[in-house]
């Protein structure tokens, strides 16, 4: 049995989570504490790296303190520390990595520098148990949109496809701006779309031509198409039907994400799909994924929204997988790597 502290600071969330690895391999969530600086960034329309880094430094020890209290353990009970060492914002990652090294050194326990992206997949194991091998992960967040083949969370992860321009969450944030909705754009678009007609406007589905890369994504053209459509309405002196635009945009995103993911699962012969990352909280995306996976006989796993957005619990979970697999810990000269490739699960 092993208690793992997970620390996350790659973007605008300071996360500290504690997971317990049971002798049978089961991983139990004991604490999941998050301090977000999202409100500080709202008026800038996106994450300001220096603001995020300052907030991480302020929140780090208080967040770890809350996690330890929530879990009902003592710092001295911890058996390992895992930390996101990339990908992400350099200055933000540095705070988490520095703190994690200090905790590991002071508690005299192993340190695991881990990759944020497999962390999003590991989050699901806290809710639905261990993953079968292989499975397909559709990871959709503010910074990433990727299809991953996961043979082993502790080691073998391969990229099947990814966005060639904007991430899906980024498209939500940009379209929200076009529609005059607040940042972050996902939740207000989701809400507006609920009252709109998803078939009102046929927005383009990026990279779905016969010669396009079948598993890559593109959302920059979609965002421009929405801007163009809105500007034409304004030019013609017509009101902009925000709810219909939101619903039609959301339909285009959900359609292309789920169509490609299901096709990839079918072609690779994979029977389980995990949908994670902040955009997985989107009602239409999870709804359409559920419908299309059911039609294709694929088991769909979507962690609850709280586990989908950035958090420390997912990093603790990934750390617990590494402990279970007997992975060699990281050295204490570990450094943050803002561009850590997705195939590198631990450093």
């Amino acid at each position, binding site marked *: 049995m092993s208690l793992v502290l997970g620390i996350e600071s790659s973007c605008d969330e300071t996360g500290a989570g504690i997971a317990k690895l049971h002798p049978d391999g089961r991983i139990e969530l004991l604490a999941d504490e998050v301090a977000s600086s999202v409100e500080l960034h709202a008026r800038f329309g996106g994450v300001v790296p220096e603001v995020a880094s300052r907030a991480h430094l302020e929140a780090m020890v208080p967040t770890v303190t809350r996690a330890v209290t929530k879990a009902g353990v003592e710092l001295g009970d911890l058996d390992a520390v895992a930390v996101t060492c990339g990908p992400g914002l350099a200055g933000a990652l*540095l705070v988490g990595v*520095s703190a994690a090294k200090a905790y590991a*050194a002071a508690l005299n326990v192993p340190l695991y520098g881990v990759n944020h992206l497999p962390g999003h997949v590991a989050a699901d194991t806290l809710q639905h148990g261990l993953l079968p091998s292989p499975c397909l992960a559709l990871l959709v967040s503010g910074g990433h949109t990727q299809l991953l083949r996961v043979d082993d969370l502790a080691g073998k992860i391969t990229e099947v496809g990814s966005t060639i321009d904007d991430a899906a969450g980024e498209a939500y944030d940009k379209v929200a701006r076009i529609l005059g909705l607040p940042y972050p754009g996902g939740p207000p678009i989701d809400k507006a779309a609920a009252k709109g007609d998803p078939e009102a406007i046929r927005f383009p589905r990026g990279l779905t031509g016969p010669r396009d890369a079948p598993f890559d994504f593109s959302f920059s053209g979609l965002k421009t198409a929405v801007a163009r459509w809105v500007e034409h309405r304004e030019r013609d002196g017509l009101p902009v039907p925000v709810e219909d635009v939101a619903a039609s945009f959301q339909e285009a995103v959900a359609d292309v994400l789920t169509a490609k993911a299901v096709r990839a699962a079918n072609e690779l012969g994979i029977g389980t799909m995990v949908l994670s990352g902040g955009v997985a909280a989107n009602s239409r995306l999870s709804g359409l994924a559920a419908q299309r996976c059911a039609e294709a006989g694929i088991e769909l796993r979507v962690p609850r929204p709280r586990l989908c957005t950035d958090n420390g619990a997912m990093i603790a979970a990934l750390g617990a997988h590494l402990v279970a697999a007997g992975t060699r810990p990281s050295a204490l000269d*570990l450094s943050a790597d803002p561009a850590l490739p997705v195939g590198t699960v631990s450093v």
Partner: protein
Amino acid sequence: MLVLALDTATPAVTAGVVTLNGDLEVLAERVTVDARAHGELLTPHLLAALADTGRTLADVDAIVCGIGPGPFTGLRAGMATAAALGHALGIPVHPVCTLDAIAAGTEGPLLVTTDARRKELYWATYDDGARVTSPAVGPPATLPAAPARAGTTLYGDVLTMPHTGVEHPSPAGLVRAATGQLDRPARPLVPMYLRRPDATVPGTRKRVTTP
């Protein structure tokens, strides 16, 4: 009392082990000048310095941490390390101004400067090691005259007074600057940024069509 001293507010990664039993004695130190390696080197430096003295983190009674001013994201490497060490070991972390640590133990009037980037310096003035004016940031040409200077050697063409030779905070300087704080409850560990983050509120969105 065994004190761990660290600072990452200048291009140096400073780590040392100091005893305070009446006298201040530096038992071991590791100082590397590499502005891009703060995150990587600090914890190994601290452990190596401790190992030199045959002690471990469990033997440490207090931490003294430089809180800047510093422009490098590296400043936060030291402060996050110190805060987490203090939490995990259950010992106090005493903040000291990095400029004070550079001035500690000097005699007479002194100007201390460190690189603030963007053609500016962080600075403060001292007399016999005691701070006279509060830390500030500004262009080299706007700094007050002084008979001597310490800290960065940058802008020697503008700041022509003699340099004392001390460029970075040392473990001894950090602990000396904390004299009088160490037997009291630790003050809050708050970084001295002296600058607001660069961030601009976006204007109106760029159109994609011509009106």
